[in-house]
């Protein structure tokens, strides 16, 4: 009914993204069902839980490649939206690489939970990457313009302060600095504060863009915001469980991470379907609508 108006290059990218979405769905479904199985039928101390914990990052890996494919539809690094999608995809890849690093420590070098380790380059590195992704998305949404004209500019400072305060209360209030391990101290402060910054930016971007945001991309952007909030909750619960020594492989937090990776990958994939909708010939749409009204 509709005529697609695009070149083979973009058609090829759309086909690739469809394949990756199918792969992502299969992988996510596998891990979601596995988690249910593990928690219903498998003892907590079984090695199967470790295998689950050490491999679910593949969801983020597939999601990252999917995101990069979709980013190319939007100009990759040559446009603000493309750069945002690229950074968010890189964030997913970094999550995968962080998990891979820890898995290598455990299965190759027989080191259990080597925090802090080389894996932190990727895990901690994903925080500024996500911050860049959200920052660029906010730019694309004209948040700067909204801030200039808004009477609620104080929210720009208040929201990060509130989030930093919450992070401090949850994770650092009773923290004792270990002067013999500066890297650990840096990361112990850096993780909760870094995550507070990226979630603050997400909330600010949402608040200052929602009034004017519309069009075909509105849903895609909302999905990205939701995925970032989900990621923040997964990270927060992980930090909390680690602090209270209640984290276990194959536990609830692992499911939250699997779901947050899938949420972000799904959000990125909707930019591909949005691209396709945008490039449907509006002339043909007008013709179809004209025919529909006369029938």
């Amino acid at each position, binding site marked *: 009914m509709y005529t697609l*108006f*695009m070149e083979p290059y*973009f058609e090829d990218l759309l086909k690739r993204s469809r394949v990756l979405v199918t792969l992502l769905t299969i992988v996510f479904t596998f891990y979601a069902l596995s988690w249910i199985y593990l928690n219903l039928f498998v003892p907590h101390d079984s090695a199967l839980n470790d295998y689950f914990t050490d491999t679910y990052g593949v969801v983020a890996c597939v999601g990252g490649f999917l995101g990069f494919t979709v980013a190319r*539809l*939007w*100009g*990759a690094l*040559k*446009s*603000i*939206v*493309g750069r945002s999608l690229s950074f968010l995809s890189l964030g997913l890849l970094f999550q995968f690489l962080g998990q891979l690093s820890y898995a290598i420590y455990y299965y190759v070098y027989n080191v259990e939970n080597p925090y802090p380790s080389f894996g932190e380059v990727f895990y901690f590195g994903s925080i500024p990457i996500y911050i860049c992704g959200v920052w660029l998305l906010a730019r*694309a*949404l*004209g948040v700067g*313009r909204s801030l200039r004209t808004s009477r609620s500019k104080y929210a720009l400072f208040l929201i990060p302060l509130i989030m930093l305060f919450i992070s401090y209360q949850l994770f650092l209030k009773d923290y004792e600095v270990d002067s013999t391990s500066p890297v650990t101290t840096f990361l112990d402060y850096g993780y909760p504060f870094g995550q507070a910054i990226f979630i603050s930016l997400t909330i600010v971007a949402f608040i200052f*863009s929602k*009034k*004017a*945001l*519309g*069009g*075909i*991309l*509105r849903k895609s*952007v909302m999905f990205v915001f939701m995925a970032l909030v989900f990621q923040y909750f997964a990270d927060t619960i992980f930090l909390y469980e680690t602090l209270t020594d209640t984290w276990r492989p194959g536990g609830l937090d692992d499911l939250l991470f699997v779901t947050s990776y899938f949420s972000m990958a799904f959000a990125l994939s909707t930019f591909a379907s949005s*691209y396709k909708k*945008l*490039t449907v*010939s*509006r*002339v043909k749409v007008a013709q179809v609508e004209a025919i529909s009204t006369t029938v």
Partner: protein
Amino acid sequence: MDDLVKAIIKEQGQIIGLDLAIRLAKLSGNISFSSDSVESLKLQGDPRAVLDSLLRSYSDVFGQTSINVCIDVIQRFPKQEVMSVVPDYVKNKLSAMVANTPNN
């Protein structure tokens, strides 16, 4: 008018990618390109209708947010040059912005 349309396409291109910006300009129905370059554009028909359909085409992306980007570009051009060709829904916003500037 050509310069205004080119500027809008380029500005949208910064945000959504130049390929898509040109594609959406083509799909607006009143603009054609003889090559992949923005500079090769040709406008067809009434300038006001061209601008209106271009803005509506871009509004498909981010809604009012995309229109705001176009308005920011329009504001860079002399008022007497653009006020005769901008749609009414943009003219009202431009007038409101001019009224709120310190010199007025």
